[in-house]
Structures are given as C-alpha cells and as structure tokens.
C-alpha cells in the first residue's frame, strides 16, 4: 500500500515537474561521470543562485525574476525530464600522455607502447577526432618551449598518420608551457610536464 502510494506520489511529482504547471525553465546540477560534482551559478538581472550539490535544481520564471532557491530533484525525475538529452551524450574524450627521452623527440619505451592503445581507441570511435598537443615544462623561454612542444607533437602526428590515421582526423598544436599537467612555478623542471597529450574524441 505504502509503495503504491509512493509511486503515485512520484508520478504526481513528475507530472508537476514536466507538465503544464511545472517550472518552465530549469537548471539542474548532476554528478560528473567520475562521481564528483562541480558548481554552477545561475544569474540574471534580478539575482543569482549557486548550486553546488548533485541533484539540486533552480527554476527561473523569467529573465527579470530571480532564480529560485536550490531544491532537490531525484535521479528519476531528471531522467524523466532530460532522458533524450542524456541519451545523446557523446562518449568522453580519452586522454593519453606520452613522454619523451630528455632533450629529444624520441618516445620513452613505455610511451611507445601506448600508440597501439591510441589506435584501438580511435577505431572504437568512428569517425574519431584526435588532437595531438605538445606541452613543455616551465624551464626556459616561453616561445622556445612552445616550439619544442610543437616539434614533439608533430613527431607524434606523423607517427599516427604512418599507422593509418587520416590527416584530416588529426589536429596538431602546441600549448607550450601554458597548460601544465603538474602545476609549478616558472622555471621548474618537471618531467611529467614534458609531454604530448593525445586526446581521442
């Protein structure tokens, strides 16, 4: 009896949420795929509402009405309201970090072994987009770091093309020292920052 009552209540709630009298405009925070949850702030001319817990939502009646205080929403309600948008979610990009022998564009043995894995991941995502981004650590001039990182990225790009990846699927670029994997101050030698990041989307 109680279960049936619960289901009836849930259905009623769903109807209220999705139906005529429910909020017309909703902002819902849900957990990332890794289980963590970020934060959003919904703002307009009348006010701002932060949402920082998963499965919380704010409704906004109009641009000149302040966002409503955050309140809970169940995963079932989220599915009922947003199912098709959730269903069209593309797979996450898969990142690979490739490392180089010091002062060269030669991959370490361990990183060379990852090339096959990159090719397999690309084959699962047809048509795959692959970005190859060179990164350096923060030792040395910023410009030179950008160039060094680009030479390493170009090397990897050529390697992937040689292995059958279409040049039109590839984007090779350099972030130099401006996108450190391990945040450091300037002029810090950090092997984990001297890398090429391949992202398969």
């Amino acid at each position: 009896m109680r279960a049936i009552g619960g289901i009836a209540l849930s259905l009623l709630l769903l109807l209220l949420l999705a139906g005529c009298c429910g909020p017309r405009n909703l902002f819902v925070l849900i957990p990332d795929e890794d289980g963590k949850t970020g934060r959003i702030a919904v703002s307009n001319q009348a006010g701002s509402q932060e949402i920082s817990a998963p499965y919380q939502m704010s409704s906004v009646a109009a641009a000149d009405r302040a966002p409503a205080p955050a309140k809970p929403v169940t995963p079932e309600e989220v599915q009922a309201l947003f199912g098709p948008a959730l269903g069209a979610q593309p797979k996450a990009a898969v990142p690979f970090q490739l490392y180089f022998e010091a002062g060269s564009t030669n991959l370490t043995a361990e990183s060379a072994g990852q090339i096959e894995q990159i090719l397999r991941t690309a084959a699962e995502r047809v048509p795959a987009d692959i970005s190859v981004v060179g990164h350096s650590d923060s030792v040395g001039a910023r410009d030179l770091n950008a160039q060094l990182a680009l030479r390493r990225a170009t090397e990897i790009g050529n390697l992937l093309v040689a292995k059958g990846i279409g040049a039109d699927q590839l984007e090779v670029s350099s972030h130099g020292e401006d996108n450190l994997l391990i945040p450091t101050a300037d002029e810090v030698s950090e092997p984990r920052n001297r890398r090429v990041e391949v992202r398969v989307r």
Partner: protein
Amino acid sequence: MRGSGLVLMVGLLLAGIWPAVAEAAAIGSVKLCSGAAVVMRGDQVLPAQPGLQLETNDILRTGADGTLGVILRDDTRISLGPGSEVVLDEFLFAPAEGELSLVVRMVRGIVQFISGEISRLAPERVKFETPVGVVGVRGTRFLVKIDGEVAP
C-alpha cells in the same frame, strides 16, 4: 609574452604544418544524432551526421523527434533532446596564446552540458546563456530546460 603568438606561427611554418592549422576552423564535431537534427550555418541547413565538423556561429537544432550530441575541441560536450536549439557563439581554445573562451547560447529545449578544458583552465571565460539567465560554470555537468517563447 605578446610576441609568442607570432613566434609560434613562424614555428608552425617551419614545421610545415601551417596549412592544417590554418584550416582548423572546425571547433568540434557531431558525434551522435537521431531523428530531425540539423546544423544551421549562415544560409545553409546541414543535416546532422556523425563526423560533421562544426564552426563558430553554428546553430544546432533538433525537431520534435530529434536528438544531437556534439563534442568540441576542448572536450566540452553538448547534447540536445527534441525541440531544442543551441548556438555556438564563441569558441577560442589556444592556451599558448592566452586565448580561451566559450560562449554557448541555448534558445529552447532540453540540453546537457559537460564542461571541458576551457572550463578547467579559465572557468570565468565560459558562459552558458539562456533567455532567462546565464550559467556560470565551475567544472561540471548540468542540464537545462527552457520552454520556448519566453518573454524577453
């Protein structure tokens, strides 16, 4: 600092990959779609299909039975349910030149947004606009429902 963009361009020319980079107007691509789903680009109406490359100012639009999922070059993922419209107003992803910005404008429908690298590197430069308010993004995944014909 300021000269680095030019130096990088020269570096690109030396590396012989300038043409590939120059053509990189693509800011992402369609990954999933079903039913009525199109990309509007100026006067063109491009039927959505996996692999279709996206450009700044593209309008993503789904019909009553349509869905559409795209991934941008910084790994931002945007997916639309039926009856939805999203405009890709601004996309800059060049950390080496200090250029980072993402402005997505949702007109109506139901949409999921999963943030990418731009949100991680410069969250204050990511905006998800709607007719009733702007969402500031701090590394996250969220859903928005906007009914059509909202009073401005």
